[in-house]
């Protein structure tokens, strides 16, 4: 009996530790959707648009980025800044022969972390783990992040740092963007104040256990 409660307790702790304040994002991350299925017409090199539009057009990816960021301890705004810069949150960003997906993860990097880059949800999770490693080293210093996450030549790193910093500034200056990202447009716990709200969410979720943990989890928006 004690053993059973231990297992149940461990399961609850585990669920609590991995749940974010965006239950929709948590649930979506459980899927395994191949990029080829999402992008039957191939991949696009065009990454443009404002953050708000990118979030609106790629709501599920925005939710997953927020959830994965929280699960990995990456500030939401940093995660969104990188993903919107890399792909515009578009699963179909990239080239047919090169990197692709919301986090523009390379297959080699993904494999090294136990993920498949060509599965959308794992692209987000793997990218977030890479970003977590970079964030632990750099904080939100985008020049340092550029060396760790992007790592290409000096000109591209400088461009990446400038671009991500621009996105980060927009996200810091407009709190509604993060609210929009974690909600897909309508529902979010985050209020834009310095202290994340702990109000119980009414967001629909298939997993009541995850929903129950929402009362204890705030969004780390830096």
């Amino acid at each position, binding site marked *: 009996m004690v053993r059973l409660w231990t297992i149940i307790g461990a399961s609850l702790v585990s669920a609590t530790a991995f749940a974010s304040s965006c239950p929709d994002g948590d649930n979506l991350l459980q899927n395994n959707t191949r990029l080829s299925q999402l992008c039957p017409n191939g991949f696009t090199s065009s990454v443009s648009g404002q953050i708000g539009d990118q979030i609106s057009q790629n709501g599920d990816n925005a939710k997953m980025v927020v959830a994965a960021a929280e699960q990995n301890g990456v500030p939401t705004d940093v995660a969104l800044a990188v993903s919107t810069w890399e792909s515009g949150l578009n699963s179909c960003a990239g*080239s047919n022969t090169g990197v692709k997906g919301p986090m523009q993860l*390379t297959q080699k990097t993904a494999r090294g972390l136990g993920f498949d880059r060509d599965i959308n949800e794992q692209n987000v999770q793997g990218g977030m783990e890479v970003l977590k490693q*970079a964030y632990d080293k750099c904080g939100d210093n985008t020049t340092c992040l550029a060396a760790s*996450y*992007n790592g290409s030549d000096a000109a591209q790193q400088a461009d990446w740092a400038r671009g991500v910093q621009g996105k980060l500034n927009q996200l810091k200056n407009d709190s509604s963007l993060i609210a929009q990202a974690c909600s897909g447009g309508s529902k979010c716990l985050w209020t834009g104040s310095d202290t994340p709200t702990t109000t119980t969410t009414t967001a629909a979720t298939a997993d009541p256990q995850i929903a129950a943990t929402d009362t204890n989890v705030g969004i780390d928006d830096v």
Partner: protein
Amino acid sequence: MLSLIMQSMRAVGLLSGVALMSPALAFAQSTDLSKLERGYYNTPEAGCDSISSAGVVQFDGKNFDGHYQLCLTDHLSDDRYQSTCIEVQGNDYKKPHDIRNDPDRETSTFHLKILSPRSFEMDHVQYQYCRGE
């Protein structure tokens, strides 16, 4: 007098037109990579706001690299080229001495037309010069 001025203006206009057109006329479409300027390229639709996002192609004088991708480009025949590429990110981003022996390499063939010293068409997708390396 007015007609003389008009004639002069037309002549200048014609000359300007010729001057503007001559570089394009002088450049015959080619498949010779040496005619293409080194630098970063992107599609006109994607624009040149960024050289570090998806879709950017870097030409180093011999090879076309993609976003998080290092490649060796080989001429096959006529307008056909082959790219042998590996993906690189973060700390992996070093030009390996031998891409051809990398177990994760991918090869693909493509058709290439050099439209001008600063534009080319790769598999019917046009790229324009954004900036130098």
